[in-house]
C-alpha cells in the first residue's frame, strides 16, 4: 500500500484547476450596475444608474422631491412633506437600502449590484 498513486496527483491537479477556473470565473463575472429606482405611489417613476451624478426632481400631485445622486450615494435633498424624515435619513448606496417619503408616497431603493449576504447557519 502506497501513500500516493499517479491517479491521485491527476485528481488533485484536476480539482485545483476546477477551483482556479471557478475563482477566475467569479472574479471576472461582472456584477450588475447598481440602479436607483424611484417609485411614486407604488409605480416605478424611473431608474437611474448610481455611477452618474445627477439631480432628479420628482413632481407629482402637488408634491416635489429632489433627489441627488453623487459619488454613488443617493440622498433626498428636498421634500415638500411635513415630517422631513426622508431628507433627514441617511444617504443610501448599497443594494436593498431604501429612503421612504411617506407623505409624498415616494420610495427610493437601490437594486442590482452585489447584495450583502445575510448570515447563513453553520
Amino acid at each position, binding site marked *: *500500500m*502506497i*501513500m*500516493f*498513486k499517479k*491517479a*491521485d496527483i491527476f*485528481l*488533485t491537479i484536476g*480539482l*485545483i484547476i*476546477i*477551483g*482556479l477556473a*471557478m*475563482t477566475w470565473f*467569479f472574479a471576472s463575472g461582472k456584477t450588475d450596475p447598481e440602479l436607483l429606482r424611484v417609485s411614486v405611489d407604488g409605480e416605478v417613476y424611473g431608474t437611474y444608474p448610481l455611477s452618474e451624478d445627477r439631480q432628479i426632481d420628482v413632481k407629482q400631485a402637488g408634491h416635489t422631491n429632489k433627489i441627488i445622486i453623487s459619488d454613488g450615494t443617493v440622498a433626498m435633498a428636498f421634500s415638500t412633506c411635513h415630517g422631513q424624515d426622508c431628507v433627514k435619513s441617511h444617504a443610501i448606496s448599497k443594494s436593498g437600502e431604501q429612503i421612504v417619503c411617506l407623505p409624498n408616497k415616494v420610495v427610493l431603493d437601490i437594486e442590482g449590484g452585489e447584495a450583502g449576504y445575510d448570515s*447563513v*447557519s*453553520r
Partner: protein
Amino acid sequence: MTPSPGKRSGGISRSGKGAGRIAYCGLLAALALIFSYIEVLIPFNIGVPGVKLGIANLVIIVVLYKLDWKYAMGVNIVRVIVAGLLFTGAFGALYSLAGALLSMVVMALLKRTDLFSVTGVSIAGGVTHNLGQILVASFLVSDLRMFIYFPVLIFSGIASGAIIGIISWLILKRLPDLS
C-alpha cells in the same frame, strides 16, 4: 446457514450472524461520533461556512478500507444524524448528511476502481462532501450564488482530504486486519 463468498470477503461475521456486525457498527459509530465532538471542540473558523478538518472522516475511511462500504455507510449515517442532533441542530445535520452521502458514494466508487490510494480517495471525499453541503445550502436558500463559496471549499476540501488521507494511510498500515 452458509455465508455467501461475497459476504465473507467484506464482512467480519464469521457465522453470518448479524449481531457481530451491529456491535462493530455501533462501536465504530461511537468512535466517529467522538471524532465529530473533537471537531466541534477545535476552534477553527476562517469565515467561510463549511471549512473544517473533517476528522470524523478518518474513521469512515478506515472502515471503508478495513471492512467494506456498507459498514462505512452505516457508520456514517448514524454518526451524522447523532452528531447533528447533538452539536449543530437539525439543519446542520441536513447539510452534513448530504455531504456525507455524496462523499461516501464517491469514495466507495473511487476505491473500487483501484486507481487511487487512500489519499486520493480521501481528497475526493473531502471535496465532494463540501459539494454536497453547498448543493443543499443553495437549494435551501434557492440561490445559486452560494456557489461563490465553492472554489474556497474545493481548496479546503483538497487540503483537509489530503491531511486526513495521509493520517488514514498511517493508521491503515499499522492496524491489524479486522475481519
